[in-house]
């Protein structure tokens, strides 16, 4: 399920529409993930406050979406472009890769809520393929 030229175009066009709200999207997606999938809280035991909209959640949501923005810019070669992040996830964070799908899904819920008219099925499938490719690049160094 590789990214076609059309997928890349759809992702870039949609990203341009939502980029100004990227931090809000990240905060909302992360807030949802921690509440709806409480097992993900195990990665953030070092945070003071894991509640929706807390300071650490907002900050990390912004960080994650910064990574997504980077990935959009490097969409033609994610494996090379995300090399540093890949090593970080493989050797430092060691996030079980199943969680990439969980976070992606919650990003989609956040997008559906904030951009109900723009997050069409066509945009949804392109973003799903894109975030799956990002997840693959991020787990490239795992083993």
């Amino acid at each position, binding site marked *: 399920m590789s990214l076609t030229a059309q997928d890349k175009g759809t992702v870039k066009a949609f990203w341009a529409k939502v980029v100004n709200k990227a931090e809000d999207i990240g905060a909302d997606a992360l807030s*949802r993930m921690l509440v709806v999938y409480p097992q993900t809280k195990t990665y953030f035991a070092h945070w003071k406050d894991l509640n929706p909209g807390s300071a650490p959640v907002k900050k990390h949501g912004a960080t994650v979406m910064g990574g997504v923005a980077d990935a959009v810019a490097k969409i033609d070669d994610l494996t090379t472009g995300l090399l540093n992040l890949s090593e970080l996830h493989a050797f430092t964070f060691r996030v079980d890769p199943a969680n990439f799908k969980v976070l992606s*899904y919650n990003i989609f*819920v956040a997008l*559906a*809520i904030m951009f109900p008219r723009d*997050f069409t099925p066509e945009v*949804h*499938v392109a973003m799903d393929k894109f975030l799956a490719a990002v997840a693959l690049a991020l787990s490239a160094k795992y083993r």
Partner: protein
Amino acid sequence: MVKWTEEERRIIRGVWEKVDINEVGAQLWARALIVYPWIERYFGNFGDIFTTTAILNNPKLAALGKVVLSALDTAVENMDNFKGIYASLSRQHYENIKVDPDNFRLLAECITITIACKLKAELSPQVQATWQKFLSAVVEAMNSQYK
């Protein structure tokens, strides 16, 4: 059997009463068939199901959407007996239609995202969690006769 608090029952009803079965019934297929096109394998005699426009104007899909959401409506009204409600549907999907049950999970995600477009911020993280607990229990009941 899944246990529900009074608060959870209230939340689920609150979400469900905002769902227009006709509207959501068509939209959920648009999302499912476009985002997960392998689902097309179960719709060989449904005609044109290959673009959002075709899907939204397809009377067979509209009818099936109503059927699916009516079954969900029955679940909302019978929160303590999902196994009972869904046993024959589960058997039908396994033995007759031969649906890979992973598709139930995918359809549940499409339903939630379609509802998210409608409810927007009303689908708070806690409401989403409760709603997904409900759909997970329905999906589990739909899996129950696959043996």
